[in-house]
């Protein structure tokens, strides 16, 4: 393709948008509405997933040691645990640490009562590892492994918490995929319809081009440029709006409903948009490109 033809095509794409202002506006509005819905849903889903993730990080498996175990043996067990893929991190809690924590909770205000146990730690056998997981659905496998290690006396874990979080996580994934598919189907249908209207208005123009010897590529290119531009504008506008709204809504909720901010932490706007911006732009441009390319294909048989 000659450089002059390339720039001509680009110019025609821009000109088409302007000369078919009403159609372009309808397409951009349709695209913007779909991407806006997608953006809202994406922000919600990302926040939910982050919350579940942070809840998962709080779920720990506790591994207690056999009586009389040496420090070297404890270290060997720690090494084995650290090599497991599902382990995010683990913390060693000595018997003294455990007693101090216990005192802190149950003897607060009457520390002198606890002094009676100063020489004889009642939790002498409670040294343990607290193990945090990457993925709570792997908890059962880890528990089985821990129970098989020599020197481990007992493994404590909460099956209910792990199962609930794992189920909730997969529920969010399924709902996300379902809603994204519906939004994609609806937006492709709407864009295809608006492009069809735009092209049928210009059917005569396409026929003239074909009769004077234009190749399919030459006829199609400005329409595709137009589709891409519509996709780009139609996704950039709702992204900008969502950026402002998201920041404001998070601040508003944190200020107005402080009980909510105690329960959950919203992700910072930049963290959500780091993924949302490229995904939405690719979606918008992709739908614009495919919508115009597929639709014009039907009108090229002259």
């Amino acid at each position, binding site marked *: 393709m000659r450089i002059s033809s390339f720039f001509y095509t680009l110019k025609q794409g821009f000109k088409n948008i302007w000369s078919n202002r009403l159609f372009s506006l309808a397409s951009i509005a349709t695209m913007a509405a779909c991407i806006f819905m997608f953006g809202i849903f994406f922000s919600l889903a990302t926040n939910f997933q982050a919350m579940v993730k942070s809840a998962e990080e709080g779920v720990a498996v506790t591994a207690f040691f056999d009586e009389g175990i040496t420090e070297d043996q404890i270290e060997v067990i720690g090494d084995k645990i650290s090599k497991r893929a599902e382990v995010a991190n683990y913390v060693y809690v000595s018997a003294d640490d455990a007693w101090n924590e216990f005192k802190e909770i149950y003897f607060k205000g009457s520390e002198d009562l606890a002094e009676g146990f100063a020489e004889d730690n009642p939790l002498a056998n409670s040294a343990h590892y607290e193990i945090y997981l990457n993925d709570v659905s792997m908890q059962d496998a880890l528990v089985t492994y821990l129970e098989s290690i020599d020197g481990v006396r007992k493994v404590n874990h909460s099956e209910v918490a792990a199962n609930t979080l794992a189920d909730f996580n997969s529920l969010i994934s399924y709902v996300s995929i379902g809603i994204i598919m519906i939004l994609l189907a609806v937006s492709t249908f709407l864009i295809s319809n608006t492009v069809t209207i735009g092209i049928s208005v210009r059917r005569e123009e396409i026929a*003239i081009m074909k009769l004077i010897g234009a190749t*399919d590529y030459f006829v199609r290119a400005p329409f595709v440029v137009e589709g891409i531009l519509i996709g780009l504008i139609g996704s950039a506008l709702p992204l900008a709006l969502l950026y402002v709204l998201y920041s404001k809504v998070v601040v508003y909720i944190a200020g107005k409903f402080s009980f909510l901010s105690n329960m959950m932490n919203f992700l910072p706007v930049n963290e959500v948009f780091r993924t949302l911006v490229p995904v939405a732009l690719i979606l918008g441009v992709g739908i614009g490109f495919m919508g115009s390319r597929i639709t014009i294909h039907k009108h090229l048989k002259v």
Partner: protein
Amino acid sequence: MIKLEHVSKSYSAGIPALNDINLNIEEGEFVFIVGDSGSGKSTLIKLLLKELEPTEGTITINGKDLHKIRRKQIPRYRRNVGVVFQDFRLLKDRNVYENVAFAQRVVGASNRKIKSSVPTMLSMVGLAAKYKSLPRQLSGGEQQRVAIARALVNEPKILLADEPTGNLDNNNAWEIMRLLEEINKRGTTVLVVTHNMQIVQEMNKRVIKIEQGVLVKDELPGDRNDED
């Protein structure tokens, strides 16, 4: 240059629009194709443009069998055949210059080439001063001249004109016919489909008459009797 051998074309209803047409047009000829509405004249033009495929027979243009031209090669073929329509078919949102330049852009001509050949072509059709006008700002005759300039800017060997004077008054019709004659004198083979028998008679060119899809008369200049 243009050769039709036993060409027939039937549409879905089964009635032939053209029936066993045999025709030979030499390079540099000026030929009128006449006949009533629905006689098959426009079908003939569409066959020559490869908009339609004949049901039977062979069409050869410049020694090339049209049937053997594949879909991808049609644009290249059409660039060698200029075409003018009754309703001008100009791009309404583009000015005179851009309408003519468009035919050159289609063939991938450079900007330099476009800048030199479009004004030349517009001068030839007498519209150099109106290069900035939009089609709606021109008279019917002027619009048809733009269409002729567009058809000729790529220097095709053949010019097909389908009722080029059908939407024009008598004066404008004559202007267009004189322009076509001028183009023919420069070496382009010209085929004009028309209803206008007065023009046909006065111009004294080869006349091919089609009636109900059948070629009923092929008359060379000088063959004509007064009662025709």
